[in-house]
């Protein structure tokens, strides 16, 4: 087939294309991902922590929610840009470091202000392994959803796009898991929440470099 024939073929009855269809798709994937994570939490982990009303009065409870939620927002911007050709990233990758730095500063301050015998507890908490297990687990529906959306779009850097998709899923999941998790120490959040979100991000990079080619 000659190139001119291909052009005629493509242009015949091409039809109109709705602009920015990806917005609805991302909204859908995130909505379904969040609801599914909440459902999984109710089914597998007995839902939110029993003392959530008391915990909600503590500032650290909100820090624990806002930290992954902020990462999710930045990861969404990254995913949206990385899934379409020719979109500038505008240093968004570096912006990701900001919430991490803030939580590490809080963690450092908390550790410095605590008596030495309490420091190990602030770092390890009682549930670090549950955090590492549950956040990736609850992220699976959002992970699948965001990957599905990206598959319908055209990421020119599949591994990076996959990492952003995984981080988005992990951060959404961590935000939901924060409602269940009993830990409140900044060092715990700065270490284990971050690692737990990076697990789906790493998986996303690996899977994306294969699955997101087009």
């Amino acid at each position: 087939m000659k190139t001119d024939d291909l052009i005629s073929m493509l242009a015949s009855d091409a039809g109109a294309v709705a602009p920015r269809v990806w917005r609805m798709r991302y909204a859908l994937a995130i909505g379904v991902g969040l609801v599914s994570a909440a459902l999984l939490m109710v089914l597998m982990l007995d839902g939110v922590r029993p003392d959530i009303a008391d915990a909600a009065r503590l500032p650290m409870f909100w820090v624990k929610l806002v930290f992954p939620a902020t990462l999710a927002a930045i990861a969404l911007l990254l995913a949206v840009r990385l899934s379409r050709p020719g979109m500038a990233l505008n240093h968004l990758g570096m912006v990701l470091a900001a919430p991490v730095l803030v939580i590490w500063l809080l963690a450092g301050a908390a550790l410095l202000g605590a008596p030495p015998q309490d420091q190990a507890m602030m770092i390890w908490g009682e549930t670090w392994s549950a955090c590492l297990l549950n956040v990736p687990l609850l992220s699976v529906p959002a992970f699948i959803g965001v990957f599905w959306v990206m598959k319908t779009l055209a990421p020119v850097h599949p591994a990076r796009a996959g990492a952003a998709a995984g981080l988005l899923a992990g951060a959404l999941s961590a935000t939901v898991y924060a409602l269940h998790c009993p830990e409140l120490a900044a060092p715990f959040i700065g270490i284990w929440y971050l690692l737990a979100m990076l697990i789906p991000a790493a998986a996303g990079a690996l899977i994306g470099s294969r699955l997101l080619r087009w």
Partner: protein
Amino acid sequence: MVDGLGGNDAAYHAFLKSLSVHLRGFLRVRLARLPDDVEDLVQETLLAVHNQRHTYDPGQPLTAWIHAIARYKLVDLLRRRAGREVLNDPLDEELDVFVASENEASDARRDLAKLLEQLPDRQRLPIVHMKLEGLSVAETARVTGMSEAAVKVGVHRGLKALAELIRSTDENR
């Protein structure tokens, strides 16, 4: 392009036509080592532009979008070839002759019509009737016995499958 996305076929045709000329120049310079592959890659990129046209944001510079797609397809081709042809380095000295040469379409090595035949009927028939013979959606539906929705889906999925087919056959060639 924007008119073409709005459903104006003539504008879209003119856009693709001038795009093919632009792509040929863009790719010929970057693919100087594989001049025979330029036309194949022009076609592959045109197909990608068409299949991914919903990812273009009207607020975005068109060239940034086009060049990102062309570069992606170029890197993808080189990656596919890397395992096989790195040792061949033909005609290195005389390349300039080819680079400066004509700007019209040469023949592609890969025949998309042949690849089209490999698609399943539910994708191939809508493409053949609608896009090659110029039938309408309703006529195609009548001829094939498919529903109008299935015809539209068939064209859409078929063109995506064609792009996949290009990539997989190229890998095994």
